[in-house]
């Protein structure tokens, strides 16, 4: 499968809007700090290649919150960061609400909630744009080496991966948000987006 330039652009722009909503939510969690987003990258690759790519970036144990979504198209939305950064993020969110020694205890729980808010913001704006509904599962937190975190069952499985990096400058915090789509779903997603575009131009 090959994506045309127009389709790739359409996908990037759509998910860009979604990640914009996600960044907005993240900024609110961090008390209004600006979140800097990179231009989205879109790649067709195997799950094994995805693992290598994510590994190259972090090089250490990573922490991920994943949410599976289903609707006219399905896939997985993920938020990934290193372990050190995840604790910092929790500290930012809970601030002075609980004593420092309890923060570590709450870390996993709190990260799931951050992931839930951020990924849902992204998926909700995407669903609203195409005028349909996406069902989202409960967020799942995984910590460990990349292979375990991504639970790669079939390394040759082809996927479309869209990633955007985010940075919170003041706290030197960075991570990335990624979307994994099965190829079947990509066709459905593109059809939805084309309908959306058509509806705009027909008015």
């Amino acid at each position, binding site marked *: 499968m090959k994506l045309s330039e127009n389709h790739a652009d359409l996908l990037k722009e759509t998910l860009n809007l979604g990640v914009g909503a996600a960044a907005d*939510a993240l900024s609110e969690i961090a008390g209004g700090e600006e979140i800097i987003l990179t231009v989205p990258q879109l790649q067709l690759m195997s799950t094994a290649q995805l693992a290598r790519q994510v590994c190259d970036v972090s090089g250490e144990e990573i922490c991920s919150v994943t949410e599976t979504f289903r609707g006219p198209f399905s896939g997985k939305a993920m938020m990934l960061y290193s372990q050190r950064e995840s604790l910092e993020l929790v500290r930012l969110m809970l601030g002075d*609400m609980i004593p420092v020694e309890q923060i570590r205890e709450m870390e996993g729980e709190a990260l799931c909630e951050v992931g*839930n808010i951020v990924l849902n913001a992204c998926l909700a704006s995407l669903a*609203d744009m195409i005028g349909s509904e996406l069902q*989202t599962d409960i967020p799942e937190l995984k910590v460990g080496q990349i292979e375990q975190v991504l639970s790669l069952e079939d390394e040759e499985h082809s996927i479309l991966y869209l990633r955007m990096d985010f940075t919170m400058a003041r706290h030197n915090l960075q991570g990335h948000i990624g979307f994994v789509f099965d190829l079947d779903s990509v066709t459905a997603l593109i059809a939805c987006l084309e309908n959306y575009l058509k509806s705009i131009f027909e008015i």
Partner: protein
Amino acid sequence: MKKILIVDDSKTARMMLKHWLTALRPDATILEADGADQALAHMKQPEGEWMAFIDYNMEGLNGMELVEALMPFIPATRMALVTANFQAAVQDRAHGKGIRFMKKPMNPKKVQMLLNQMEQAEVQ
């Protein structure tokens, strides 16, 4: 007696909401539930003037299904769906039932706004 019920499967979300609610309504009794089962168990002692803050995506009954189940105990205008899932479809469903909707992340301002709206609302 004022009773405020927080239903969310995330302990973090409940903790934050409880923190703000306690500060804003120190006299109210604040009860927590991690899902529909615990929320409905609280209804075994239904007396009091109830308000409820309910998450949407939860194991078992989702937030809107729980709202239905709570209707005999808590007036719709005193319930709010508080969720990161702000899709128009979900918001429409909430408004269709006459309950309030607020987008996560929560903050003291949003909590205050919901409390004011719920307290001023007519109880049908």
